[in-house]
């Protein structure tokens, strides 16, 4: 699993200057490995009253697909680039596993505020930074 990443806002158009839609969740990404064809996203935290929390996502959920597509990104940056295409107002369909149960969650991305843009840029920088040894 890659380094912990706080992700309050998501990438947009691979340009750090533009802001993506805001989902309000922080996660760790596990790329496909150890015989698994698919990767998965572990939800670490949720912004209070943010879009993900309002949609019913919980910390500890494991996201297994985004908009019906399995998660097969080679690393966190690649995943962020996929998520960067989500703009404010877009509905994102997630399949999740919560403990022993499965569920579907639809999150309506919000328009990111200035503070959320700053938080996203920080997350982007952290994701790009080399992992600590």
């Amino acid at each position, binding site marked *: *699993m890659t380094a*912990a990443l*706080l992700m*309050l806002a998501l990438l947009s158009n691979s340009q750090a200057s533009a802001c993506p839609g805001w989902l309000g969740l*922080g996660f*760790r990404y*596990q790329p496909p490995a*150890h015989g*698994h064809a*698919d990767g*998965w996203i*572990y*939800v*670490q*935290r949720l912004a*209070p*009253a943010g879009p993900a929390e309002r949609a019913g996502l*919980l*910390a*500890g*959920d*494991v996201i*297994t697909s985004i908009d019906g597509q399995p998660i097969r990104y080679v690393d966190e940056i690649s995943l962020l680039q996929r998520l960067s295409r989500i703009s404010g107002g877009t509905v994102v369909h997630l399949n999740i*596993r*919560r*403990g*022993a*149960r499965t569920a579907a969650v639809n999150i309506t991305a919000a328009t990111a505020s200035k*503070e959320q843009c700053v*938080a996203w840029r*920080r997350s982007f920088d*952290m994701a790009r930074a080399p992992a600590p*040894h």
Partner: protein
Amino acid sequence: MRGFVFVALLASAFESRASTDPTSIQLFSVDKSAQPVCLMGRLHAVPRCSGSACGDVQALTAEWTFRGGSAEAQLSLRPEVSWEVSIEGKGCWAPPLIIAGGNNGETRTAFVWPAATIAGVFTMQKGETPPKELHATVEADDAAAPGAAIPQTSLDCSVEDTGWHCAVPATKVDLRFSADGFVPRYVWGLEVPAGKKKTLDIALTRGASVSGRVALSDRRVPLEGVDVELRPAGFAATPVDERRISARSRKTGTAVRGFFQFPSVDEGTYDVVATKKGWSRATRRVRVGGAKESDAGILTLPPLVHAEVIIDPALDTKGRRWRVVLDRDAVPMQHLLPLADKLAAVDGTWRVEALEAGKYRLEVFDGGGVAYERLIVDIQPGEPSLRFHMDALLVSGVVRIGRDPLAATLHFLNQQGSGDLNLISNATGAFAGTFPAAGQYLVEISPKESAQRLRTHVEVQPNAEGIVKLDIELPGGVVVGKVVDETGNPVSAGVQILPGGGRQPMSTMAAEDGTFRLIGVDRGDIVLNARSLPIGESGPVPFTVGDGTSEPVTLTLHPRHEFTVWIVSPSGQPVAGAVVRFNDGHYSHEVIAGPDGDVRFTVARGIDSIDVVIAAAGFPIRMMNLPIAADMDPNPQVSLGGVSALLVAKVAGAPPWPGIRPMPGNVNLHYLPELFASPMGGPSFPNRTARGYEFELDPGIYLLCPEPHLPEKCFQSTLAPGTETIVDFTSSRDTESKK
């Protein structure tokens, strides 16, 4: 005789009633308009007592009418109780008058405002049930009429379905609306004309909130436009911690009257920090629990301060000026210059201006860089100068490893007081210097010819002549060897003497040719481990150290043992997202179960079991020992339990943390934080509630240890399915209660 007693009591009651002089209530109209809406009304006085405490005291009423903007009415208020007097009238509003017991014929005044109405609907999330009651309070300053400020007063409000309305005074008012379970709402400076109605919809959201006010210390004036930050309380030791705390922090500014509010706040402990340029910051810690409002109170910004230091003697032992460094009392998140770093004047004084009031780290060095003082100071307005008297001890000695002198850099750190200095020993092991104080020092020794660091403790005490002779003897054991991979090729790997058996860990790095040398090792049994991230580990290798240099030992790196454990529910469904912590006897790790409940373990060969803690939402925490062997089940499965037992641990919130382990079995003691379900990098202490730290555990018998290093204090507790056990580790004698 009985008839006499009755007559006496009657007389007493009559005397009491006869002595009551009427209380005069003078009313003044705030409404100076030509056609005031509030003209007359009545006073309704209710005794503030209940049942037998009231005796025969009855409620009273009196009429009043404004003439020329004032009115007077009289009430015969019995002095043995206190009274609440409502001032009522069509088109009128006034806060109730409270008249304390003991009143007898006094005159009270009150202001009466023309009334207005506010009304509206609740707006809520879809599916939300509107509240049955609305609590509202009003407050106003005395801008309407000198002396006519309205203290915080409850309003009469009615609620019907999603609609509500309240009567308010027709002046500029501040309002607070609250409904059970919803975040309170505030409206500032609302003004409704007399007799009119203003529509005001109240948006209700569920959850907790934090509110408060900010004022300046000199004027106690509520302040608009102050930056206020709500930060999760937590110790930020690294930049990542700081980023984590900052990312969860929220900012706002103060509104009129210095008010601030953070709605929808998660349960937890927070620091509210108010900052304004030119003033010191003010911080208040608040706890948020349940869907309630936490009041941070008034945060008062103190003025900026100065720090002044006076050092005696004015110069150090060699006639040099002292150097004083002042820095923030916080772990530096990045390399920041200290706030002040300059030499004291030749008279020993040192001063710095325009500091925020608060705690700082202050250090005083002699001209050679030896720290004579290192302390935390709390600098507040009006504090006297900080005075230091500096003593100095001449210290000389020799450092030896076994029987051989050691050339090294010696870092001395006083464990009891001031003293932090570096000295260098020469080829004969000799060193000398000036120490600021006697006491027990930790010495970190960096040998000239080795990358290894050694540690020991020494006692610095002067002899009768005031001189300190300090000889440092290090163990003479030397472990030499070579690190190779499975094909025999040398590897530059980390080599460590593992902790345990009373030994502190020691480590060094093998050279390119795989050779290593660990010096200063006590004789006896040790466990070695070599580790290279890409190649693997030797696993624990027992070794016996004698005097002098041991026979060379070869540490062979093997690929680590990798296997997958599948975590399932009682019905066999995979449990995704479980936080799994395990300890291989030397190191702790954390992994997360994937969508199939799969957890990948990587451990060094030679480790025959690992201690595992599995925390998954909705399942009791499992603590277990997992045996590891070459012929082990390649797909071991762990089935989590169904029914849990709740343990509520009241702890101080800081180390030493209590320890816990299930009994019977061979699971080692775990510190409570290892049971926290939150993954590293996740929110801190999610198990913390107003009651303590709460854990849903597998039912069974557990050993609980208030201080894990004191096994004699451990005790057993049976956690039965579906029950709640509260253990108070904060009391001097640990107590337990069950439900």
